[in-house]
């Protein structure tokens, strides 16, 4: 699960840093607001705790053993934001001092385990546990499923990151430059081990821990329950914008698909395309055999030079490759949209003092 250096291309690493940074920032802001002076000692001790439990080997049915990441435990006890920070710090110490996971791939590891893992664990636990009492066995089941899903989502993200490498990053002879296996191999190879062994370890340790705390230290669960009110408040804001976030996430995930398509999108031809015989044939074919004018339409020619895009064709010349430029452009575009939404929401909700 911990991706070492050299498995992911620099473009993928840059993309994962760009995607993870806003979560780190948001998590720190929220934790700071909730904990004040308790933030530094609590996060330090819990990061150490996250690190230590990653070293625990849990004996599994069948004679094998697996080690848990503890995403669900942290998310249940601390909430998703503090869990994100704690696991990220534990991963950073592992990467730098213990060589467990790479430095260039640190953000990818955080995105998979700390961010996605914590959020999936939190949402699953909150959804299944619902309003059940502290002693309810439903909470044990919720924690177990949360742990199982969280580690499998993290593994799936890791597999996707591996699987897109040979498709996007290879040399002229076709040699994959980073992780060499395509999605068809990377996903089953990662998921078989996680659906069976690692997922089982996370399931047992998450469910087992909640059962243990219900008997011996229910205060720890209660403190997380007390925080649920604050979390529900944040959920209400989330609910109102949920559809937009889903759409944005979907678009960001799907944006690299554009790399697979050939030719220019219908109707997005430039003036220079009318001069190329190949592109002209393509336009005619895509337009159902309609006749093309022999020269560039006057209006198009006049307006073409009016505006030069800062990132033409999603791949500026200073970037390494078209693939990298395309992916970075997708992130920049998504970032700009996010910024716009944030500005609009700030103006719209300025008079509403509800704590999010």
């Amino acid at each position, binding site marked *: *699960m911990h991706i*070492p*250096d*050299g*498995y992911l291309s*620099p473009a993928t690493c840059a993309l994962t840093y760009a995607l993870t940074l806003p979560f780190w920032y948001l998590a*720190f802001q929220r934790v700071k607001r909730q904990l004040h*002076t*308790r*933030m*530094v*000692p*609590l*996060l*330090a*001790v*819990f*990061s*150490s*705790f996250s*690190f*230590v439990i*990653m070293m*625990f*080997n849990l*004996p*599994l*049915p069948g004679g094998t*053993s697996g080690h848990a990441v503890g995403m669900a*435990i942290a998310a249940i006890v601390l909430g998703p934001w503090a869990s994100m920070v704690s696991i990220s*710090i534990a991963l*950073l*110490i592992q*990467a*730098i*001092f*213990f*060589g*467990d*996971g*790479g*430095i*260039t791939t640190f953000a990818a590891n955080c995105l998979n385990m700390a961010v996605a893992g914590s959020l999936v664990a939190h949402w699953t636990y909150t959804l299944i546990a619902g309003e059940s009492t502290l002693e309810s066995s439903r909470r044990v089941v919720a924690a177990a499923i949360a742990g199982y899903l969280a580690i499998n989502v993290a593994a799936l993200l890791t597999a996707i990151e591996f699987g897109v490498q040979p498709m996007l990053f290879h*040399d002229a*002879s*076709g*040699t*994959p*430059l*980073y992780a*060499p296996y395509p999605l068809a191999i990377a996903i089953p190879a990662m998921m078989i081990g996680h659906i069976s062994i690692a997922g089982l370890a996370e399931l*047992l340790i998450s469910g*087992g*821990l909640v*059962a*243990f*705390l219900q008997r*011996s230290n229910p205060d*720890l669960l209660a403190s997380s329950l007390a925080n649920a009110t604050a979390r529900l408040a944040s959920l209400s804001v989330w609910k109102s914008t949920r559809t937009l976030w889903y759409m944005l996430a979907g678009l960001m995930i799907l944006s690299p698909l554009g790399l697979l398509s050939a030719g220019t999108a219908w109707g997005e031809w430039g003036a220079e395309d009318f001069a190329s015989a190949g592109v002209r044939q393509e336009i005619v074919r895509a337009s159902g055999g309609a006749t093309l004018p022999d020269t560039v339409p006057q209006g198009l020619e006049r307006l073409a030079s009016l505006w030069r895009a800062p990132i033409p064709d999603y791949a500026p010349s200073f970037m*390494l490759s078209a693939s990298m430029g395309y992916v970075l452009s997708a992130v920049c575009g998504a970032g700009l949209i996010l910024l716009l939404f944030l500005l609009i929401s700030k103006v719209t909700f300025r008079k509403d003092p509800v704590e999010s």
Partner: protein
Amino acid sequence: MSEQSFVQSGQPRRRHLAERLVHAMELAFDAETVGSQQGFLQGLDPRIKLIAILALIISGVLTRSLTVLAALFLLALVLAFASRITAARLCKQVWISVLLFTGVIALPSLVVVPGLPVWQIPLVHWNVTYQGLRSAAFLVGRAETSATFALLLVLSTPWTHVLKAMRSLGIPVVVVAILGMTYRYIFLLLQTATQLFEARRSRMVASMDGPQQRRMVIAAVGVLLGKAFQLSADVHLAMLSRGYRGEVYLLHDFQIRRRDWFALLSALTVPALILCFQI
């Protein structure tokens, strides 16, 4: 930590937590010992060293040439030699561990990656391809080179200095403070966890079966969680008693000299050259 790691020491067998704790402590102690020796990397400012090593690791990931990758690996060896870090130590702590982990992952790529056949494996008649060989060489080469540079950094620098040096990368002071405290409490909690297991083991008259072992591990995690909460509350009170009001200050006693600038410039030239030649 069952994956590629500096604390595996080339022995892939399952370890007890106590052994892992000892290995982690040994690694930290080694960093103090090797870091205090006279050597090239030891003499550099930690901030410069951190940025320079990062630049070299990024170079290893950036390059699309096996020759450049080999040259970077050679550079890592030269730096180790100049810093009195033996090849035997690198071999024990990095090379074998990386080879066992990444080597196993890279092996199927020899036949899975399509391309020009260079050899046919007898009996199974699978073709080893030229592209597969290069791909495996890239994966193992990058992983070995990056891990060697990372180990050179942590072996030649006291860990507290590495953490403080992170400020030069723009990491907020509060994060650096949390990292410093995390590093300290990792060893404390590891020691506590080890004592929990030892205390249980010392009271046993027979070996436990699977479900019992699972219950013991889960109970240990639960107890450790309770202790962690208690510890964080104690540390918080101790900090407040010393006047902590939420602002974090770090003491900087690093000094950059001319040779530090030269080392930094040289290190930054490597990825710059790679980028220039690849565009």
